[in-house]
């Protein structure tokens, strides 16, 4: 089992690396000059260039990528907001004093840098002091917002991450209970009115955009129940539940449709196998056959289904957040696209992908819990 877990974990690494490469390549091709975006359209071109230079945007793509991952040190220049933290307060103070002096020479700076474990580069005839630190994805740092001055991407995405996670957990709970339940019931009562009606509902659910269900709920469900139409209020647990009830229900219902359809076919597959017929022939009660024989063997496909639908659920969460004006990861990414805040877009998409990859990894690893044969066979 342990080697199996290790092998799966190792298998995830190239995928995660490729995900970062794709997302970062996309990011590099989004139009818009970060310096211009931060400093404004009428800013001095020399300042814009200096800004881009200090952020490393003028460096070759591969260098930027390796720094973003955290395999190469990033340069934090002396005028950066986090320079104090990185270089130490005392060094930072001395550095500022040195830099503000008129006519400071390059060799003086170099001497200072040598003494304090800093670096110096020359840009447009001026010496610039910087500290080198590994600050990238590997160190849990997603960089700095291009638009909001001094805001780390991790900080910006942290609060919205919590919103999305709660929305996703609430929805997957509803979707699993409803979807797996309906799927099993339909398979067991195959070709009866229960089967037909739940499968008709399921195909309608698959076809309906989640944001439209959200709109319908805002129009027809929220007013009679007195539930809030949008936003999130975390003042008390009750308020949080009241605000998340409709979004979770909308997203959960839509996701349950796919789960129900796939669970039904997985269950039918198992029910048609020989050992089920044998169990029935032995005279076991139908209840026992379904719960002990069929369900246990259908559990792996069902868990796989739930794991795979988590991807759709994350996509649905982006749309649901938009309908109900929740400030989640999806809304954050969409807003950043409008503002052309590249680092936040990259970080957001990366986090969403990592959530999806981890969920699928957990699903794979959970097979052993459901089916002892996996433990021996592949372990």
């Amino acid at each position, binding site marked *: 089992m342990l080697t199996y877990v290790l092998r799966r974990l190792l298998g995830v690494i*190239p*995928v*995660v690396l*490729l*995900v970062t490469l*794709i*997302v970062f390549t*996309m*990011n590099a*091709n*989004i*139009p818009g000059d970060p310096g211009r975006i931060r400093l404004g359209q009428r800013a001095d071109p020399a300042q814009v260039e200096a800004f881009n230079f200090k952020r490393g945007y003028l460096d070759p793509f591969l260098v930027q990528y390796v720094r973003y991952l955290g395999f190469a040190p990033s340069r934090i220049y002396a005028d950066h907001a986090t320079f104090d933290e990185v270089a130490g307060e005392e060094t930072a103070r001395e550095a500022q004093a040195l830099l503000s002096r008129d006519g400071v020479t390059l060799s003086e700076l170099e001497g200072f840098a040598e003494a304090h474990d800093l670096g110096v580069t020359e840009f447009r005839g001026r010496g610039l002091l910087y500290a080198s630190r590994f600050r990238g994805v590997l160190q849990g740092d997603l960089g700095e917002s291009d638009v909001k001055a001094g805001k780390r991407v991790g900080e910006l995405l942290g609060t919205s991450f919590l919103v999305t996670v709660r929305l996703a957990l609430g929805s997957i709970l509803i979707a699993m209970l409803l979807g797996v339940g309906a799927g099993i019931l339909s*398979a067991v009562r*195959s*070709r009866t009115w229960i089967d037909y009606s739940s499968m008709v509902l399921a*195909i*309608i659910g*698959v*076809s*309906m*955009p989640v*944001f*439209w269900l959200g*709109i*319908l709920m*805002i*129009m027809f469900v929220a007013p009679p129940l007195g539930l809030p139409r949008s936003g999130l209020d975390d003042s008390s647990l009750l308020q949080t539940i009241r605000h998340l009830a409709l979004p979770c229900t909308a997203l959960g219902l839509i996701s349950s449709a796919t789960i129900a359809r796939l669970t*039904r*076919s997985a269950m*039918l597959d198992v029910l048609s196998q020989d050992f089920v017929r044998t169990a029935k022939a032995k005279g076991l009660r139908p209840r026992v056959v379904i719960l002990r024989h069929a369900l246990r063997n259908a559990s792996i496909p069902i868990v796989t289904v739930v794991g795979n639908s988590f*991807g759709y659920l*994350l*996509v649905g969460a*982006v*749309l649901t957040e*938009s309908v109900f004006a929740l400030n989640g990861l*999806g809304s954050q*990414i*969409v807003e950043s*696209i*409008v503002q*052309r805040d590249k680092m936040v*877009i990259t970080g*957001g*998409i990366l986090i*969403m*992908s990592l959530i*999806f*990859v981890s969920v*699928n990894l957990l699903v794979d690893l959970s097979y052993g819990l459901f089916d002892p044969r996996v433990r021996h066979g592949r372990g």
Partner: protein
Amino acid sequence: MAEVEPRKFAGRSPTQLAIRRVKKNRLAVAGFGVVCVLVLLGLFPGLFAPHDPIEQFRDADSYQVAPFVNPEHPLGTDEIGRDVLSRLIYGAGISLRVGVFGTAVAVFIGVLLGALAGYFSGVTDWVISRITDTFFAIPSLLLAIGILAISEKPKEWIIFSALGLVGWPGVARIVRGQVISLRGSEYVLAAQALGQSSSQVLLRHILPNCMGPIVVLATLMIAGNILGEAGLSFLGIGLPPPAPSWGRMLVDSKELWTIMPWMGILPGLTISITVLGFNLFGDGLRDAFDPKMRA
């Protein structure tokens, strides 16, 4: 004793048998009907739409009028007085084109990579499979959003290319599986023994036998792409206004859903019926091509 005429049996290909099975499935036929209507509306919107989709009617009995009130505007007008029915009809073209061409892009990439991975195995397979896994790992709509962010003002071809770039891994996985299962079969070995090149074997002998699952997947994928386009427009990253995209119609009337409920209902209903049509037809095709799948 009268002479008995030998009964004639018309030979039926598997495809003909599948079509017969689809015809017997009433839901699939209904879905096909919806698809046909959509194609007609999408190809010739001018024949059916009563008005220009971007013309604004400002007079008192046309502006923001509810459905079934003014016969000039059977489904009412929107928040700035445009005819809703006409916008829905013109929107069908956008949905259809994005859905179909997006699927075409995905099928092209997916079949190419899936066939290569399945046929050549080894390193080729490993590399392509890792790329497929990676594209699977990024939630589809987010990847499409990221690709669309690269273009300043998205045009239709950019949107369907983005959806195609997002959708191909599903096709690649299915094609790879099919190719692997056919690769060792006797007729393929025979073709190889006759000295046919790899591309001839793939194109002439293996791929035609994978068509069933590809057609089924493509039909369902059109449904998914129509939903995807609606979602992108709803997020405001689809076609810029005044294009009558269905998702855009919903979000543009956002502030007015309570006083103009038809603007919150009609575009969503249209999307749902369209997607339902493709899904029912696709399900029918799947049951017909693969009788084992039927319960």
